[in-house]
C-alpha cells in the first residue's frame, strides 16, 4: 500500500507552527500508510530502517519504508492469542531476526525472500509474555518478561531454556523489560509501579529496587548515553528520569494530564518522546517531544493520529545518523512517519539564557562559553568526559552528528519563554482535570472509603476512619480549581465523631495541604486525604494499632495485594508423609485428576501458590466471597461453569483420604517384642536364650545368632566360676565384642536390640538381682513403706523417688540433735535387706566389673532414653522404667525435702547416717536411743524419729511425738506433704 495523500506534503515538513506567539512546534507526519485490514497490536522497525513489522492476531505484515513504492508483505497467521510484543534484532549480524511473543511463547523468525521462517520457539514462561528486548551488544541475547513475574534471558545458541531466569520475588507480573544500552549488563524490569534493576552477572537478586511510580509503569527506556540513567512512563501521568545509583528519588519528573504509555529517549540529541493515553479515550492522541532539561513544556507535538497510539519506534537512518525519524502505529490503523530535524533537536539542548535553567541543580549559568557539548545537560553532567571520549571513538559520521549541532548552535531562540502558555493548555486542562483527578484517585487508600465522586457537580464525599475517629468529609471544588490559591472547600458532615478542637485542627491541616498543592496548579485530593489520615492517627498520641499498620504497609496496599502476595507463598502440598514417634506412618495424596486441573498448562508442579490462586492479575482470592461448597482453588475458574463445577466437586470431595501404616518392622522395632524381652539378671544365659526365642517367634531370624552370641558372652570362662565380677572383669575380648555389637545395632538403626544388650550387661553384680527378685525378698519392707509411698504421691516408675529431704528444720536439728536421715525409700529398702549404706560406692564397684566400659555408659544411656521414650509412646510404662533403671545418670535432678543431721563430734552437717571423719553415728532412734543404720523415718514438723519399725509401732497407738515435744506428728506431716504436692 502506498503512502496516502498526506505523504505528498512529505518533503515540506508540513505545517510547522513556528510563529512567535506559538513557539511550541506542532508537527505533522511526513508519511502515512493506512492499513485498514490489519489489526496489529505490536510494531517493530528493523535494523536497516527499511522494514516495519506490524504484528496482529491474524496477520504479520512487513511494510517497506523509504522507497516510495510502499511494499507490503503479508503473512497469514492464525492464533487464538494476540501478539503481545514483537521486536526486530538490533544488531546487524542478526538483522533479519525477529522475536514475536504470543501468549506464553516467543517465536524467533527470520524473513526470507519468499516466506517467513520459523527459527526457534522459546518456551519457559508460564503466563503471557509482556515485553521483549534484544541485547544491544550481543546479538544472541534477548530478554523477555511475563506476567508470571519472571524475566528470562535467552541465548539463541541454546534456545531450549533460558540461560538466566531472573526471579522477581514480588507480587506483580513484569510488564516491561529493557537492556541497558551502554553497559549491556544491567537490565530493568517493571513490576507494577516498581522497577527492579538486575545485573546479568549476578542473577540471584536485583541490584537495585526503585519505587518509581504510584501506579503501573508502562514504559522503560534506558538512556543511549549515560549508563545508569533511564526514563519511565507510568499510568500515574508522569514520566520520571532515574539514575539507578540513586534509586530513592527521581531526577526529574514530567507531569502530564493523562497516563503516559511510552517515553523514549531520542537516539541522538537530548530529547525524549512520550505518548499519552488520553483520559476517557478522548483528547489529543499526541506524541510529545521533550527536552531533557525542561520538564514544564514539550518542545514539539506531533499531531495526526485520530486514535490511541499503540507504539512508536525510531527509524534508524544508516546513511545519515544525524537524521532520525519516528515511526508510529495507532489504533486508527495508520502507520505514520515523522521526521525530527536538527531544529527540534537543538531546542532540546540546554537553554543557558533561560531562567528555568536555574531550577536545575547543576546549571551552566556560570560557564564562560557557549560551546558546551550538547549532552552536557544537567542530566549528563557527571559523565561529561566519558561522553566526549565515547564520541571521539565513534565512527566519524556519528561523531559528526554529535559535534555539528554544537558548533553550529546559535543562541537559543528568545521566544522560548512564551511556550509555557500553550503547554498549560495541553497538560492542565481545567475542564477535564477534576474528572481526571477522580479517575486517578487511589480508591484503596488505607482508612479511606470513597463514598461519592461527582465531577460534574464538582464535589466528593469521603469517609475516613483512623485513630479511633470517623470523619465524613465533604469536599467541594470551585470551578477554577486547581488554579493558584483556589483550593477545594472542606467540611465535616454528619457522622463525624470529632470534638470541636480536633476538627478545627484537622480542617486546618487539610487547607494548608490543599493550598500547597494548588499553588502549583496541582491536584490535591489524594494528598489531602493522606494528610488527614496522618493527622488523625497522630491525634491519639501516636498509639496506633500496630497490626493494622503492618497489614497496611505500603507494599501491601491495594486490592491486588492479596493475590499478588501469593507469589511468595509456596505451592500447597497435595501429598504428605509423616512418621510418628511410635513408628506409625501417615500418608495422603490427592487424586491425580484434582491436581491436573490446577496444572493443566505445566509439566512440573509450580512453585508458588499464585499458580493456582487465580493468577497474579485476576483478583484477590483471599477477600472474595466464596461459596462454602466450592473448592478454594476452583472458584475462580469454575464459577462460570456451574455444571462442570459440580462434577469437579464430587471428585475433590472424595479425595482427602489418609492412610496409616504400621512401619515398625521397617524400623526394626516391635512393640510386641518389647513386651516379651526379659532383663532377668539372675541367670544371664537363660535370659539370652529366652530373648532368642522371642526373636524367633516374631520372625526376627537375623537376631537369633546375636542372642546366641550374647549367651556365649554371658557364659563364664571357667565353668565353676560363679562370681560374675571376676568373669567380666578379666575378659577384655568380650568387652569389646559387646560394645561393637551395641554400636553396630545403634548405628544401623536397630535401637531395640542395642538397648536390650546394653541393659542386660549394664551392671552385672549378682547381688543386685532382678527387680522381681528384689520385690520378693523385700516384700515385708515394702508393705511397711507402702503407706509412705502413697503419701509421697510419686510416680512408681521412677527409679529414684524424689523424696530426699533437704534441710528444712534447723531448729529441731540443733535443739535435740535428732539424727534423722531419710534416704530414698528404695535404697532404704535395699539397705534393709542387703545392708548397703552407700549405693554410690556399690555402683562404682559394679562398673569396674561391668562388661561395658564406663566411658561408653553415657552414650548408651542416651540410647536407653530414646528407647524409653518410644516405650512411653506405646504406653509400656513398666518396661520403660525397667529400662531407665539401667541408666547410670538420672536425667532429672531429684528434688524434695531432705533431712540433714549434725554430727555431735565435729558439728558438721551430715547427710549420711554416720560421720565419716569422726567415725561416729549421727542418727539415733528416739525410742531405743540406738544409732539407726537401716530404714528411718522422722516427723517432718518436729524432726523427731528413728527406726522405721519402732516408729510404726509407736504411731499405731499414739498420735503425738515419742520425744515428748508435743508435736502431733501424723497430722503435721500429712499437712506438710499435702502442702508440698
Amino acid at each position, binding site marked *: 500500500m502506498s503512502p496516502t495523500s498526506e505523504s505528498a506534503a512529505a518533503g515540506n515538513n508540513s505545517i510547522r507552527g513556528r510563529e512567535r506567539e506559538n513557539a511550541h512546534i506542532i508537527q505533522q507526519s511526513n508519511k502515512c500508510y493506512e492499513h485498514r485490514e490489519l489489526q496489529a497490536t505490536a510494531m517493530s522497525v528493523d535494523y536497516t530502517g527499511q522494514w516495519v513489522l506490524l504484528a496482529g492476531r491474524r496477520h504479520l505484515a512487513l511494510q517497506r519504508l523509504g522507497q516510495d513504492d510502499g511494499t507490503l508483505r503479508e503473512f497469514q497467521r492464525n492464533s487464538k492469542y494476540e501478539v503481545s510484543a514483537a521486536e526486530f534484532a538490533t544488531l546487524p549480524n542478526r538483522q533479519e531476526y525477529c522475536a514475536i511473543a504470543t501468549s506464553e511463547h516467543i517465536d524467533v523468525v527470520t524473513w526470507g525472500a519468499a516466506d517467513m521462517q520459523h527459527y526457534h520457539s522459546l518456551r519457559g514462561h508460564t503466563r503471557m509474555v509482556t515485553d521483549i528486548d534484544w541485547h544491544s551488544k550481543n546479538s544472541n541475547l534477548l530478554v523477555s518478561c511475563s506476567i508470571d513475574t519472571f524475566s528470562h534471558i535467552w541465548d539463541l545458541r541454546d534456545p531450549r531454556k533460558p540461560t538466566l531466569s531472573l526471579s522477581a520475588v514480588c507480587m506483580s507480573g513484569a510488564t516491561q523489560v529493557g537492556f541497558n544500552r551502554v553497559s549491556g549488563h544491567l537490565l530493568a524490569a517493571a513490576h507494577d509501579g516498581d522497577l527492579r534493576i538486575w545485573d546479568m552477572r549476578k542473577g540471584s537478586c536485583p541490584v537495585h529496587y526503585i519505587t518509581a511510580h504510584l501506579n503501573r509503569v508502562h514504559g522503560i527506556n534506558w538512556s543511549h548515553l549515560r549508563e545508569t540513567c533511564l526514563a519511565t512512563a507510568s499510568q500515574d501521568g508522569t514520566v520520571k528520569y532515574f539514575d539507578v545509583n540513586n534509586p530513592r528519588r527521581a531526577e526529574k519528573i514530567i507531569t502530564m494530564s493523562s497516563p503516559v504509555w511510552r517515553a523514549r529517549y531520542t537516539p541522538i540529541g537530548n530529547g525524549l518522546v512520550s505518548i499519552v493515553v488520553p483520559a476517557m479515550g478522548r483528547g489529543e492522541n499526541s506524541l510529545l517531544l521533550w527536552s531533557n532539561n525542561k520538564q514544564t513544556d514539550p518542545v514539539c507535538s506531533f499531531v495526526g493520529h485520530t486514535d490511541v497510539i499503540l507504539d512508536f519506534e525510531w527509524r534508524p537512518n544508516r546513511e545519515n545518523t544525524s537524521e532520525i525519524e519516528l515511526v508510529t502505529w495507532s489504533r486508527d490503523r495508520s502507520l505514520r512517519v515523522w521526521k525530527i530535524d536538527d531544529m527540534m533537536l537543538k531546542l532540546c539542548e540546554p537553554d543557558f539564557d533561560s531562567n528555568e535553567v536555574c531550577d536545575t541543580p547543576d546549571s551552566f549559568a556560570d560557564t564562560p562559553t557557549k560551546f558546551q557539548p550538547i549532552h552536557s545537560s544537567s542530566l549528563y553532567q557527571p559523565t561529561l568526559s566519558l561522553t566526549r571520549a565515547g564520541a571521539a571513538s565513534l565512527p566519524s559520521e556519528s561523531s559528526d552528528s554529535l559535534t555539528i549541532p554544537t558548533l553550529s548552535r546559535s543562541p537559543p531562540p528568545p521566544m522560548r519563554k512564551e511556550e509555557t502558555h500553550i503547554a498549560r493548555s495541553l497538560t492542565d486542562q481545567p475542564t477535564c482535570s477534576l474528572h481526571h483527578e477522580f479517575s486517578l484517585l487511589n480508591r484503596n487508600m488505607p482508612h479511606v472509603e470513597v463514598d461519592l465522586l461527582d465531577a460534574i457537580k464538582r464535589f466528593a464525599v469521603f469517609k475516613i476512619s483512623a485513630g479511633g475517629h470517623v470523619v465524613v468529609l465533604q469536599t467541594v471544588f470551585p470551578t477554577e480549581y486547581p488554579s493558584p490559591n483556589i483550593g477545594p472547600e472542606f467540611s465535616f458532615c454528619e457522622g463525624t465523631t470529632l470534638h470541636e478542637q480536633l476538627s478545627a485542627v484537622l480542617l486546618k491541616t487539610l487547607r494548608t495541604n490543599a493550598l500547597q498543592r494548588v499553588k502549583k496548579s496541582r491536584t490535591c485530593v489524594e494528598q489531602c486525604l493522606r494528610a488527614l489520615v496522618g493527622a488523625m492517627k497522630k491525634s491519639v498520641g501516636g498509639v496506633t494499632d500496630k497490626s493494622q499498620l503492618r497489614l497496611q504497609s505500603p507494599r501491601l496496599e491495594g486490592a491486588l495485594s492479596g493475590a499478588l502476595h501469593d507469589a511468595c*507463598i*509456596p505451592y*500447597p502440598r497435595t501429598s504428605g508423609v*509423616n512418621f*510418628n514417634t*511410635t513408628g506409625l506412618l501417615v500418608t495422603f495424596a490427592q487424586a491425580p485428576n484434582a491436581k491436573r486441573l490446577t496444572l493443566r498448562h505445566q509439566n512440573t508442579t509450580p512453585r508458588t501458590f499464585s499458580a493456582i490462586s487465580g493468577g497474579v492479575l485476576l483478583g484477590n482470592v483471599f477477600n472474595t466471597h466464596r461459596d462454602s461448597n466450592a473448592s478454594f482453588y476452583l472458584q475462580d475458574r469454575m464459577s462460570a461453569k456451574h455444571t462442570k463445577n459440580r462434577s469437579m466437586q464430587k471428585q475433590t470431595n472424595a479425595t482427602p*483420604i489418609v492412610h496409616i501404616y504400621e512401619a515398625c*518392622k521397617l524400623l526394626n522395632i516391635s512393640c510386641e517384642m518389647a513386651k516379651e524381652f526379659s532383663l532377668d539378671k539372675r541367670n544371664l544365659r537363660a535370659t539370652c536364650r529366652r530373648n532368642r526365642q522371642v526373636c524367633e517367634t516374631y520372625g526376627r531370624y537375623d537376631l537369633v545368632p546375636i542372642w546366641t552370641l550374647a549367651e556365649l558372652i554371658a557364659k563364664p570362662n571357667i565353668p565353676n566360676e560363679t562370681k560374675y565380677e571376676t568373669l567380666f572383669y578379666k575378659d577384655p575380648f568380650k568387652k569389646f565384642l559387646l560394645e561393637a555389637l551395641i554400636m553396630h545395632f545403634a548405628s544401623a538403626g536397630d535401637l531395640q536390640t542395642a538397648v536390650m544388650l546394653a541393659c542386660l550387661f549394664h551392671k552385672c553384680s549378682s547381688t543386685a538381682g532382678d527387680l522381681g527378685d528384689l520385690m520378693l525378698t523385700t516384700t515385708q519392707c515394702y508393705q511397711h513403706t507402702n503407706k509412705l509411698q502413697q503419701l509421697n504421691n510419686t510416680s512408681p516408675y521412677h527409679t529414684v523417688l524424689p523424696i530426699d529431704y533437704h534441710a528444712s528444720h534447723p531448729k529441731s536439728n540443733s535443739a535435740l540433735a535428732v539424727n534423722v536421715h531419710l534416704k530414698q525409700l528404695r535404697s532404704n529398702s535395699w539397705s534393709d535387706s542387703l545392708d548397703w549404706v552407700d549405693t554410690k560406692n556399690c555402683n562404682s564397684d559394679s562398673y569396674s566389673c561391668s562388661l561395658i566400659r564406663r566411658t561408653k555408659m553415657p552414650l548408651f544411656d*542416651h540410647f536407653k532414653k530414646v528407647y524409653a521414650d518410644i516405650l512411653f509412646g506405646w504406653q509400656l510404662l513398666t518396661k520403660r522404667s525397667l529400662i531407665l533403671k539401667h541408666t547410670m545418670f538420672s536425667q532429672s535432678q531429684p528434688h524434695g525435702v531432705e533431712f540433714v543431721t549434725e554430727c555431735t563430734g565435729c558439728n558438721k552437717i551430715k547427710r549420711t547416717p554416720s560421720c565419716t571423719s569422726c567415725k561416729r553415728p549421727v542418727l539415733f532412734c528416739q525410742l531405743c536411743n540406738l544409732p539407726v543404720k537401716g530404714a528411718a523415718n522422722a516427723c517432718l514438723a518436729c524432726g523427731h524419729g528413728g527406726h522405721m519399725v519402732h516408729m510404726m509401732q509407736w504411731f499405731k497407738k499414739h498420735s503425738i511425738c515419742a520425744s515428748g515435744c508435743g508435736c502431733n506428728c501424723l497430722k503435721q506431716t500429712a499437712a506438710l506433704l499435702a502442702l508440698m504436692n
Partner: protein
Amino acid sequence: MVSLINTVDTGHEDMIHNAVLDYYGLHLATCSSDGSVKVFDVKNGNQILIADLKGHQGPVWQVAWAHPKFGNLLASCSYDRKVIVWKEGAANEWTKFYEYNNHDSSVNSVAFAPAEYGLILACGSSDGSISILTCNIEYGVWDSKKISNAHTIGCNAISWCSSTVPEPAFDQRSSTRNTAVKRLASAGCDNCVKIWREDADRWVEENRLEGHSDWVRDVAWAPSIGLARSQIASASQDRHVIIWNSTDFTTWSSTILHTFDDVVWSVSWSMTGNILAVTGGDNKVTLWKENNENQWMCINDDAAATNAQTNEQRTL
C-alpha cells in the same frame, strides 16, 4: 515391610495439606484448604471424628502436636497469617488456647520444640520471619520472639534439633549443661537451609547450608539417638533431596539423596532417624535407608507403585 492398618476418610471439602498422628498414635489431625482442622480418633482402627476446628479464614497448611506432657495441644498455621494453638479441655472438647497474629503473610510451618525445653512453638512465614513462641505453662502466658528476615522472600519449613544431640567431644559432665542449647533448622525461598542457635536470649544464624538451586520446601532434623552426628534432610523445588551431615555443627557435608521426577516437598524421619520418607508433586511416597556403604537406597520402589495404584483405585 509396612502394613496398612487404617484408612481415614477425612471428609474435608478441599485438599488436605498435612496429616499428623499424635505421640501415642491414637489421634490423627488433618488440615485442609477448606480452612478447618479435624481431629480423628484412630485407636484400634477407629475413624471417629472427634473435633472439627474452625478458626482459620484460609487454607491451613500445617498442624503439629505438642508433647502429651503439656496436655493435648495442637498448633495450626494458615494462609490467613494466623497461628492457632488448640487445646483439648475436657474429653473431646477443643477450644482455642492461643492465637498468634504477628505475621504479615501466610504462615507455612509450625513445629513444637522437644518437650525437654518446655512448651515452645516455632512458626515460619512467607513474610520471611520465624517466630518462636514460648508458653509459661503455669500462667498460660505466651511470649514471642521473632527472627525477622530469616529468609528473604519467605520461610517454608521449620524443624527442631532434638535435645538429645550430644556434644562433639562427648563429655557427660558438660552434656547436661549443653542440652539446653536450642537449635532449629529452617528452609526458605532463598534456596538455603539455615541453622539457628539460641544464644542468650537471641537467635543467631549458626550456619547456612547452600546446595539447592530452587526454593527449599521442607527440612527435617533427624531425631538423634545419641550418636555424635547430626543429620538434616531438605527437600526442594529443584527436585533434589539433600542429606546434610555434621559431627560438630560447624561443617556440614551434603549428599544428594536422589533426583526425583517432580518437585519434592515433604520429608520425614523415622523416630530412630534411620529411615526417611519423601513425597512430592508426583504424590508418590518413597522410603529411603542408608546402607552400610553410606549409599541411600529406596526401599519401597515397587511398594510405592502398588500404593499409588491402590490409592488411585480408591479415589476413582
